[in-house]
């Protein structure tokens, strides 16, 4: 088994090739485009690109508050901002990559409509690095800087709808060699790479800001699984893919033993079903569509039967071509078709023994193209040539997307010149290169006295960089970790307000100046988050004024009058009694003093 990862991280700030912000919302202005496959650098029309065109689709784009003419493909790209290139350099260095002399942006043809231009701009920044893992080094092939695609909103028939808010957001793509041993190792590797990108402080950190593609092979060709949305799904996805390929090997064996298979031409069987009660067929006929049926010999019982899901593999082709609702014999009668309907179809098609059928309801003009794609796919599946691009689903499964696309679909982006990366620039960035996750863990444990669990808590919550900033102004690791891991999220939730890093920094600075203890820092934080005091006068808040010895003594005496006070419950009861802060050691001293004197 060979596993490689391609992980994409969004950066925040400004889009890669224009001056729009990475943050914005969809607007209501809509425009429409077509995509026409064009020649690649080497003179071929890329196979994946041609596949998309058969679909002859209309792509509709909603503009957004963060889109402009560049995003609409109505203005040439601007030169990329230095900050984005620097982040890619820093990440490359942390992954021990060689940095290129010049970043040379390429156009990667993508005509599924997700890019208004019909290509994605991408350029290599780092080459040939590695990341250390518990199972040895995983080699990094490339670190590239590229533009994110549009966000798909919906799809219906020939129309796909996209929003431009995501288009052009800078992405750092990190590709590993297939050095990953298994699904757990994949997750560890992804974590370690992710830690580095997050440590730059430029990671966007929204819901969809990390996307990973998994390259997988178990001897039947390389499968590229696009868009695994969560780290935890990597495991399920790989398991699903192993299972799928194993069952395809079984199916292929059974069919070979039965004497092979092929699909006959599609026949128009609309007349047989003109009086059917099937709602799905009636709806199609009302839209002037026709019902087509083809025979697949020797495939009965393999289309949908336990682990055997050949039907689904073929239905993916239909779905990709905008043909909905493919039906096949392993699920018939069904879809409102009666035994009688099915018998009529079987008789008309001349079904015998192991013959299976598939049916689609569609416009007649697309049926020839559909048939030729279907033939190609069945041939590949039966010869166990499983190399292709697949899409990951939200529930850890995968489905066929398109044939693999080669390097053929790349050619130079002529609107942007080469971007030189002189040695001077590399030297100036060296100080910003983040530590590895291992080094960070050791730093937290050895220099700040955290346990493994506490240290992992800081790292997994992406707070290591913040911690290092805060510790500079307040040398109290435990106070800081309790605040950033527990108290701050708690107060933010309670008062429904988000604090910026700068605000927290000010409070920690104040804590240092006023020599606040843990309780006072947390109290100050709550007072500020709740909106009671602005930062300017927070330090002078009544609640933060320490009680002087006289007042503290009065309160303790009052407490002792009403209940049994011990050294153990004193502090707890005092805190309930007064909002003001006090020094616990002083309180105990005073208490003992009173007790001894009475």
């Amino acid at each position, binding site marked *: 088994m060979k596993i490689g990862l391609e992980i994409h991280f969004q950066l925040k700030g400004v889009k890669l090739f224009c001056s729009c912000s990475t943050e914005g919302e969809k607007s209501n202005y809509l425009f429409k485009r077509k995509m026409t496959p064009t020649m690649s650098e080497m*003179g071929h029309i890329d196979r994946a690109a041609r596949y998309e065109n058969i679909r002859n689709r209309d792509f509709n784009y909603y503009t957004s508050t963060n889109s402009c003419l560049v995003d609409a493909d109505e203005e040439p790209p601007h030169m990329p901002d230095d900050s984005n290139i620097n982040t890619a350099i820093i990440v490359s260095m942390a992954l021990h990559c060689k940095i290129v002399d010049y970043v040379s942006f390429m156009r990667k043809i993508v005509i599924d409509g997700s890019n208004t231009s019909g290509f994605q701009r991408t350029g290599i920044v780092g080459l040939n690095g590695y990341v250390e893992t518990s199972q040895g080094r995983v080699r990094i092939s490339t670190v590239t800087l590229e533009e994110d695609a549009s966000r798909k909103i919906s799809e219906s028939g020939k129309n796909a709808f996209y929003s431009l808010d995501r288009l052009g957001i800078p992405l750092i793509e990190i590709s590993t060699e297939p050095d990953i041993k298994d699904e757990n190792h994949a997750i560890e590797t992804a974590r370690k790479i992710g830690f580095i990108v997050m440590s730059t402080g430029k990671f966007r950190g929204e819901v969809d800001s990390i996307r990973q593609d998994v390259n997988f092979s178990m001897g039947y060709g390389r499968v590229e699984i696009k868009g695994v949305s969560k780290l935890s799904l990597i495991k399920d996805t790989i398991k699903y893919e192993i299972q799928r390929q194993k069952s395809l090997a079984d199916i292929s064996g059974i069919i070979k033993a039965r004497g092979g298979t092929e699909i006959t031409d599609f026949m128009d069987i609309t007349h047989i079903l003109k009086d059917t009660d099937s709602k799905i067929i009636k709806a199609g006929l009302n839209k002037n569509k026709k019902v087509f049926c083809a025979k697949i010999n020797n495939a009965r019982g393999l289309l949908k039967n336990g682990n055997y899901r050949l039907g689904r593999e073929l239905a993916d082709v239909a779905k990709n071509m905008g043909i909905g609702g493919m039906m096949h014999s392993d699920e018939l009668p069904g879809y409102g078709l009666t035994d009688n309907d099915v018998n009529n179809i079987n008789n008309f098609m001349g079904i015998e023994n192991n013959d299976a059928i598939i049916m689609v309801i569609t416009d007649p003009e697309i049926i020839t193209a559909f048939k030729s794609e279907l033939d190609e796919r069945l041939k590949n599946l039966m010869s166990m040539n499983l190399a292709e691009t697949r899409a990951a689903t939200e529930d850890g499964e995968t489905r066929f997307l398109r044939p693999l696309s080669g390097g053929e679909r*790349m050619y130079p982006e002529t609107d942007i010149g080469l971007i030189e990366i002189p040695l001077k620039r590399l030297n100036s960035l060296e100080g910003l290169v983040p530590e590895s996750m291992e080094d960070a863990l050791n730093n937290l444990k050895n220099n700040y006295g955290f346990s493994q669990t506490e240290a992992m808590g800081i790292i997994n919550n992406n707070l290591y960089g913040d911690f290092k900033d805060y510790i500079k102004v307040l040398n109290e690791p435990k106070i800081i970790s309790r605040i950033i891991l527990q108290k701050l999220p708690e107060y933010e939730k309670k008062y429904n307000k988000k604090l910026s890093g700068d605000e927290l920094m000010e409070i920690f600075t104040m804590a240092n100046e006023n020599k606040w203890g843990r309780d006072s820092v947390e109290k100050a934080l709550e007072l500020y988050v709740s909106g009671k005091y602005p930062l300017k006068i927070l330090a002078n808040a009544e609640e933060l004024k320490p009680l002087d010895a006289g007042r503290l003594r009065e309160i303790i005496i009052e407490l002792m009058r009403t209940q049994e006070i011990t050294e153990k419950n004193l502090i707890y009861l005092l805190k309930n009694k007064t909002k003001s802060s006090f020094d616990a050691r002083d309180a105990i001293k005073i208490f003992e003093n009173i007790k001894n004197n009475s």
Partner: protein
Amino acid sequence: MKTGEKIDFEYKGDSYSGIFIKNDGKITTIKLSNGYNISALNENIKILREYENNYVAQDNIREIKINGKNEVYILTTGGTIGSSVDYRTGAVKPVRDISYIYNFVNNISEFNVKQINVANILSENVNSKYWIEYARRARDVLNKNAGVVIFHGTDTMQHTASALSFMFEKLTGPIILTGSQRSSDRPSSDAFINIEASINFTKSDIGEVGIVMHSDTSDGTVSFHRGVRARKMHTSRRDAFQSIGIRPLATYTDGRVSVNNNAMKRQDENILNDKMDDSVSIIYFYPGMPEEDFINIAANKKAVIIMGTGLGHVSDNIINAIKRLSKDTYFFMTSQCLYGSVNLNVYSTGRYLLDAGVIPLGDMLPETAMVKAMFLLANYPDNLVKLMKSNLRGELNSRRILEW
């Protein structure tokens, strides 16, 4: 090493293989097997091995030549639409074979498309000699009873369209200029639909020179703009060309041409006056413009088109200069506003301009006026003023309506 040759090389201590693209003396560019180009300083790269060149570029062009009944000649002259990207070097080169259009024109089976390579020139370098050449070629095609489409750079397409409009006194069919704002190597290029629309417009009954480009940013409708009223109004958008002050003469949507009533119809013969006089200039007035600058441009010209402010105004010192020169030079007034008509009767400045001998041109576009003067000076020098003020090809409107 030759472009396209497979090589092994060392870069910063690591070995790779790839395809050699170019070496410009300082930087070597190599395409890696994953498709990316690497551009490396020559001192950082070491070629380890060169393989024999077995790469042959293949053009993926549909082999079928369709002999539809409508013959259309495409005259290629250069510009974005007539160029393609060399996918290896990124350099732009002229299209030598346009049969790629068979891949995307929907109803191509109705046509028989042929290409004549007339020029390969950036449109900013086009001048009156090219206009005359294009006009003669177009006439020859129309005389064969075939349709004619000219692929032209967009920057000066409006000038060429105006020149052809005036040179042809009669037309047996439309002469269509089309271009693109996005190069045709891009899947999103506007060229594909502009070409499809242009080819389909050749079947219409319009007898005018027109510019055919996107109506809006969407790939939906394409407009046929009257050549003498069209203007490039945006540097980069697909719908850069607009009909100024009138509606487009026709539109094309999804295989359907619809022509509005104002389009002039085909006539029974082609009459071409293929002469142009270059002794015309155009001067854009600005506040504080020195008299000497104005005189330097205007002197020794037979006619000058002024682009005045607002209703057609210039400063007093420029009026004085005009007074001095108007014995030998014709001065015509147009407006920088582009939309609307000049009127020299509203303000005193206007009346002084009339006294100085300036001839107002109504709502005629400045570039159209310049080309028109070049045409009239060469063909009707004795009637210059009268014809400049007359509407010959739809370039001058007496009515401007509020809405359409």
